[in-house]
């Protein structure tokens, strides 16, 4: 965990533009998720929707370390990961609607966001199923002589899956350039970490496979960014895979169907005091890196972007039913 002193120093050294960028990125996610919740209630968005509120510092911090050519493998709680990676908000919103202007042509929905330009390989909704893919993507980069990194997000729940352990073993065995980012939000759906894991220190589990594994405060965007930069630099230098456990918390229910019977309101409120956005904004203001007008301006920009995304999705079109069987096999090839 980054010490308080180290964090203060980092904040004081921070470039104003970069600070605003981080805050902006986190706000984009928060306001997007709030809009999704609203649109879900309005029946515009359906299916399973898993919101990222509270975890914004994870995706935003990690993405700062990635280059455009790097690959990202995401989880089903992927809106924040996609937004922070640079998948356009309007195309993500259109995907929520199931419109063909969506980033996955409407075929995927909330849990399956994809984007070729940013090498965003999903939106994976089987817990841990993206992990082995990351090994392969990184292996391909290594074999083809590309100095890219594959960044694979997963949750604490995934660490209980066999796929996680097979992946760690393969990644270290083959020394692939992959960063594994565990967003430990303390619950696998509704089952708390202590009921899922005999060893609740997840970084410790990864470490036994022989890769560097660190625990990071996932509510602190600067700490996440610093850890990710260090990890990615090591990976790009050819030192093999790296594991980061980001300790975080989701403020909302697991999905839109969750009555949250497994945790207390007090616990949620306690974590909300560590809100990655408000604490960061306050911190920057306390140190006079930014002022209240800056936050206000960011909020305006974000609100406009969200409105535009909704308008884009509303104006989007439904794929013709005649196209139903497209994309089962590649086109132009005999099926």
């Amino acid at each position, binding site marked *: 965990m980054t010490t308080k002193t180290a964090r203060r120093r980092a904040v004081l050294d921070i470039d104003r533009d970069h600070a605003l960028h981080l805050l902006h990125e986190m706000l984009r996610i928060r306001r997007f998720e709030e809009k999704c919740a609203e649109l879900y209630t309005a029946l515009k968005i359906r299916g399973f929707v898993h919101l990222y509120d509270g975890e914004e510092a994870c995706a935003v911090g990690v993405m700062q370390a990635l280059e455009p050519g790097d690959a990202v493998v995401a989880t089903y709680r992927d809106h924040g990961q996609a937004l922070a990676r640079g998948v356009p908000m309007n195309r993500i919103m259109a995907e929520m609607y199931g419109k063909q202007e969506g980033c996955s042509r409407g075929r995927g929905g909330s849990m399956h966001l994809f984007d070729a330009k940013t090498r965003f390989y999903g939106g994976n909704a089987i817990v841990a199923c993206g992990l082995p893919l990351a090994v392969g993507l990184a292996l391909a980069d290594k*074999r083809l002589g590309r100095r890219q990194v594959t960044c694979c997000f997963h949750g604490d729940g995934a660490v209980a899956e066999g796929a996680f352990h097979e992946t760690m*073993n393969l990644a270290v065995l083959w020394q692939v350039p992959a960063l594994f980012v565990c967003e430990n939000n303390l619950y696998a759906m509704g089952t708390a970490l202590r009921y899922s894991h005999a060893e609740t220190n997840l970084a410790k589990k990864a470490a036994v496979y022989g890769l560097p594994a660190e625990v990071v405060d996932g509510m602190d965007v600067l700490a996440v960014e610093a850890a990710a930069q260090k990890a990615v630099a090591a990976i790009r230098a050819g030192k093999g895979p790296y594991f980061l456990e980001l300790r975080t918390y989701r403020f909302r229910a697991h999905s839109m169907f969750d009555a949250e019977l497994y945790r207390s309101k007090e616990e949620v409120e306690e974590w909300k005091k560590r809100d990655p956005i408000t604490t960061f904004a306050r911190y920057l203001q306390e140190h006079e890196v930014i002022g209240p007008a800056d936050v206000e301006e960011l909020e305006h920009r974000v609100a406009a972007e969200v409105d535009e995304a909704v308008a884009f999705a509303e104006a989007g079109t439904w794929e013709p039913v005649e196209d139903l069987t497209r*994309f089962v096999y590649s086109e132009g090839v005999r099926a």
Partner: protein
Amino acid sequence: MRTNGGTQMLETTYRETVRAAIREAILKDSRVFLMGEDVGRYGGAFGVTKGLLEELGPEKILDTPLSELGFTGAGIGAALGGMRPIVEIMTVNFSLLAADQILNNAATYLHMSGGLFNVPLVIRMATGAGRQLAAQHAHCLEGWYAHIAGIKVVTPAVLEDARGMLWTALEDPDPVIIFENPTLYNMKGQLAADAGAVDIHKARVRRAGSDVTIITYSASLFKALDAATTLAQEGIEAEVIDLRTLRPLDDDTYLTSIAKTHRAVVVDEGWRSGSISAEISARIMEKAFYELDVPVERICSVEVPMPYPRHLEEAALPQATTIVQTVKRMVHHDG
């Protein structure tokens, strides 16, 4: 070495033929590599890849740990990343450990991503009984895989296909699973010295006949051909069709045959209920009902987990004698 109409013919085995196909693919395309359990130092569980590690090196012939889920997923990732991996899974029973990756990732990525990400992956695996390996090594589940939209399933029975299907599968932009029946590995035969790629979308008539159509694939092809020889001695001419590809099924070839013979029997080493034979039987009913003189018959494995003792294993599997009896009954039924 002999010549056949000017073509040089080589004496070879199915095993050597598969090895030659793998070797050629790796030498021809730098993106191709083979990975799987014991494919390298051990030489392949069935001796198929013997000598390839020494010749081609560990980057091309990659030994994996016992992590079917992990390395199959890594194969999918490597395919997404621009490689052309051949993943070898020792037996179809073991492939169930990787079923998540095959069904939830390989078969879905193109569709879930709205056409953005195809998976040019080839998986090879052994299937089928006949070597007293009992109930966890010898089942015949290619029919299950043929149920999955998004993958292609091929079953080379003859040397020409063992040699030529791999390259075509590697050129396919989508996942292809090649099922090899290990009882065929020792099969000897003549193969053209310049044998190369063959199509993977058409069935073949392996023996022409006018009285009954026997539809089969993989190792059962040879039981059907044996049965046809016996039947010919009794004046019954069977047309034997090798499906070659179980998904997508080539309906035209067997429907054309049935239009001539008016009788059809499907021989399938899978269990009868919900099998590929059930699918074919249904299609015949849908598309050739009025061509039939007698109901379609099916000869499948008896619905038991595969037993160990030879006499029980033989009793559980389709046999040439059963095919002969069934066909005679069908022919004599309608006089």
